[in-house]
């Protein structure tokens, strides 16, 4: 198990003056992660997993929070909520075995769309992937998810249709 990459922790101020923290996920984030997924609209969960996720299973939560910070890196965005934190967004990549390419995924709490945190998360994630020496980052997006495709294009991803599956689109960025 790799060490917790504390150097990736950052604080940012967002448009409404609130301060958010971007940090790698920790194994003890299970409760926050579960709350976050439970609060997401069904449609948002669908766009992320591209299938119906009724209630996140223990196995899924474990997969999302207990990571090796090497092949699998996940950054979460949190805001203070009383005496604890609330998770409002997360982005992660999982690298291929050969360590050249990685696949990424991102989820933002429904109330935090258009807040700028998606950009902050992706910027940090891309930076970490570059630092690890990965060559490309790619994602699989539902073709109808036009907001995500626009966002990805803005981040310099190339949009590549998948001929055998028009319902999904591949997006790729050279790091």
């Amino acid at each position, binding site marked *: 198990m790799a060490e917790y990459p504390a150097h990736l922790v950052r604080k940012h101020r967002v448009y409404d003056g609130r301060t958010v923290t971007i940090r790698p996920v920790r194994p003890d984030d299970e409760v926050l992660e579960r709350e976050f997924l439970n609060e997401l609209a069904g449609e948002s969960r669908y766009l992320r997993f591209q*299938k*119906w996720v*009724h209630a996140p299973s223990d196995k*899924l939560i474990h997969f999302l929070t207990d990571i090796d910070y090497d092949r699998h890196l996940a950054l979460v965005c949190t805001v203070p909520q009383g005496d604890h934190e609330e998770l409002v967004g997360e982005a992660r990549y*999982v690298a291929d075995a050969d360590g050249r390419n990685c696949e990424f*995924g991102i989820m933002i709490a429904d109330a935090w769309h258009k807040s700028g945190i998606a950009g902050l998360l992706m910027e940090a994630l891309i930076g970490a992937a570059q630092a690890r020496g990965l060559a490309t980052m790619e994602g699989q997006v539902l073709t109808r998810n036009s907001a995500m495709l626009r966002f990805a294009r803005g981040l310099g991803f190339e949009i590549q249709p*998948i001929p055998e599956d*028009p319902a999904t689109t591949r997006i790729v960025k050279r790091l």
Partner: protein
Amino acid sequence: MRKIWLDAYPEGVPAEINACAYASIKEMLEQSCLRFRDKIAFSNMGATITYGELDRLSCDIGAYLQARGLRKGDRVAIILPNLLQYPVALFGALRAGMVVVNVNPLYTASELEHQLVDSGATAIIVLENFAYTAERALAKIRVRHVVITQVGDLFPPLRRWLTNLVVKHVRRLVPRWTIAGAVGFREAVAQGRRSKLEDRELRADDVAFLQYTGGTTGRPKGAILTHGNMIANIEQTAAWMGGVLTEGAETVITALPLYHIFALTANLFVFLKLGGSNVLVTNPRDIPRFVTELKLTRFTAITGVNTLFNALLDAAGFARVPAANRGALKVAVAGGMAVQRTVAERWQQLMGVPLIEGYGLTEASPIVCVNPLNALHFSGKIGLPVPSTEVAILSEQGNEVDLGEVGEICVRGPQVMRGYWNAPAETAKAFTADGWLRTGDMGWMDSHGYIEFAERRKDVIVVSGFKAYPTEIEDAVMLHPGVKDAGAVGVPDPRSGEAVVLFVVKKDPALSAEAVLAHCKQHLTGYKLPRRIEFRDRLPKTPIGKILRRELKADATRSYG
């Protein structure tokens, strides 16, 4: 924008229609009832009702609903197959000022419950055969008025008695039910006759229908269709057919269910406006009986979906229909799903008229495009935009793409819905900033304005023209305690266009395919049911945990073929 398709319009089809030809459906119906009083409006299993009878019976049902305290805008759910009671109930509710919620009678109790709760229906009119399902749905909600009808209720006395007896006691098609306070259809008519239908003014912007249509996540949503939307689409469709059809002289075969928007507009409303006669086919799956009916009826028009035309062409005895028809047939229209070239060509060879393909969606009342009626051959395209309609092919960014390029088919026109009932977020997503309705269907336009489908980009499975969403199926399957994971995909099927194949990961090792299917039957209507169930140890996923539907689909296609 320039409507390049206007140059390709057949002679006699106007560029624009008068979308305000009638203030409401009520006004249109009342005019037809006056003008065509003694003509047959509907026939079903040999029984008929004239326009005059439709006028009187629908007045009675309308008066009954008003006397029960229903006000203008209250929702009335109609849960009927194609029977004479359907148009009576429909016009009764509409003329009394109510909003009609069409419900597929084959819905399960939970699907029905969702639609009743979401629409807020306070009255339902249901066929007794489905009263058992309604009873279970009503256990959890408050619908104040329930009218129950039996199959033969509008047949002449002796046949009525006999039909109702046979349906109930010989063919045993009526599961036992008990709904307190339910009133029989004939009793409702009798009560309505004793009171008077109060004339409630209806205008174009009054809501006529909450017409439910599937959603990509979870449950169906209700498209709000106004009297104005419907009148516009009736006028557009009638204008398209105007050169071919004659007032008061047409007979149309109505085999598609009227609770679906296509037959509702294209058959029931358009032919009522023209003083034509609708032959209601209650069960088109009973192909031998359907073919017999076609041989006995000199029909001049027919609508259907690819699956239905295909089944007819394959049926024994159908080859004798053209001789019996003696050249009366003028128009055959197919919608709801892509038409296969082989089906279109076989049809034309046998029947002598081409199969005209059209395109539409519930949100547009529904007709958007149709091929010209004077076409000599099947075009393989979904047609030209109908009068007073704009169609644009837009890119992901919302810009118009060049002719020949693929983009999203988007529609503007007087037939386009106001939005979805109780779903402002879904409504916002359905329209662009410029007011284009986003159909979610990908296509391209040629230089004459003909539109052709590209692959559908929504992850939707189209079974005989009905949309089944993988998420809704997966959601229902996941409710089974023995299921760990589930994935549904569509595979090509020669009969229904596409069929649902379901992949299941077991939680309970003893789980059987029969048990999964039985569970599905409780929660899903027939067309959404998996044609095949396969068990897997895991579903194919990307490293990050996204399901790989294309791999599932390839797997399903291999094993299904």
